[in-house]
């Protein structure tokens, strides 16, 4: 089996999760106004740009986790005991 360079594996996880996180952020914030969300949480002072940014990174964290797990589980199971 060809050894895939470490950096290539990193990008194979980071890049698709970045794309899907971007998409999720757009869809989520089209439906919900950050200021309405802030009002629900009882916070009055929050910039929309800030909420978008934090929202994007939370989505990225989520998709990153999922991509990492896919990467982890696709490795072949160890069949023999060491």
């Amino acid at each position, binding site marked *: 089996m060809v050894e895939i360079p470490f950096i290539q594996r990193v990008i194979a996880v980071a890049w698709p999760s970045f794309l899907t996180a971007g998409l999720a952020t757009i869809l989520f*914030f089209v439906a919900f106004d950050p200021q309405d969300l802030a009002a629900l949480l009882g916070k009055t002072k929050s*910039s929309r740009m800030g909420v978008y940014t934090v929202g994007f990174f939370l989505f990225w964290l989520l998709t990153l986790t999922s991509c990492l797990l896919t990467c982890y589980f696709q490795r072949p199971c160890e069949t023999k005991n060491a």
Partner: protein
Amino acid sequence: MSENKPTVKPSAAAVSESDPESSSFYAKHKKVYPREVHGIFRNLRTIGILVLLGLYYGVAWLQWDGHQAVLFDLPARKFYVFGLTFWPQDFFFFAWLLVIAALSLFYFTALAGRLWCGYACPQTVWTEAFLWIERKIEGTRGQQMKRDKSEMSATKFRIKALKHIVWIAFALFTGFTFVGYFTPIRELAGNILSFSLGPWETFWILFYSFATYGNAGWMREQVCIYMCPYARFQSAMFDKDTLIIAYDEKRGEPRGSRKRGIDPKEKGLGDCVDCTLCVQVCPTGIDIRNGLQYECIGCAACIDVCDDVMDKMGYEKGLIRYTTEHNLSGQKTKILRPRIIMYTLLLLALAGGLVYAVSQRVLLELDIIRDRSGLYRETDEGLIDNIYTLKIINMDQKPHQYELSVSGLEGMELIVKKPEITANSGEVVDLPVTVRLDPAVLERASNEIEFTLTAKDDPELTRTETGRFVGPRI
């Protein structure tokens, strides 16, 4: 300046063999040093790149009717595109536009191969800009390769540092312009000059600048080869009539070096002089003579350089050329094929539909929210009150005064506390209203009623929304 004028040297060693192998961002690969090229396609690409970069950096500064002409104002949740304003409610149009964009990409791919990749993709456009800067500072391909192999010295460090400083400055300006499409660019520029830029804007400018610097300066063709989803599936749109860049194997082989003026047939050679210039100019570092490869972004640099060589040798141009598989095998190319006709019709229908739908948009939004404190209220006279909050959004670019009416049940009285219902451009107005009714006319507890809001100065600017009127159990 010998690099600018390709010379035909017999049996130049394949370039990639002598390149230093470097560990890069993505995968272990050999750094590609594309040789500068001149010719008709190079000129076309330069014009395309200048126009696209000009649009990107220029449009952000255009004004229209007192606001930035193209502004996806995320802080205000409004998108301005010249005379049009879009709201989150109009997301549908955006999705529609994306479908059209995707279909156009399929259409052009089926028709003319990877035109997008070679001429218009931002990755190509910015890589070309970065390559141009690199050449201006580091010199020709040969000079760059020599310097990279040499030991670090003060001169080498100075040249490399200068290149990166210019790259980073250019990337920062690109990032600034990018953020300028999402938050008003004039304010942004003012904030930068007065050192009062907000933390989120700062972050995104740096983020996008870093992406530009990394993608166009370092990763380049690797983005196309490893990261681009389109590159992986574009071949599915290809058929034997798609325009591709191809090497005419029948004419070129057997390849081999020769002296100028010698009849190749005598030596049993084809037209390819094996000068490897087509490999040297390739930005993705492939050999087009190995056939159509998915790394080929269709930039046509090999066509330009080979035509030059053919001219010098006194051979006919077009050993490498834009052609189709059918053409190469001696058949006729069919342009109007079922998939092209289908894409054309579909695109026309979608684009026409979008223009029509946008032009028919009603620039008024009305939401009916029932009061949560109770289903209904009984007045002293025994009448039933239902309380609502109407959310009115004026999506037009000018203020309006509106008239409200309610229908659906006989004898309803509409009580609005405000004397006038007005909303400025882009304003969201919460309007509390009460609907009063004699319960004698009610046939059931829950009834549908309709609120209609109409602009006084434009009867076509009207919205009707359904609400519920609730009375006592019957």
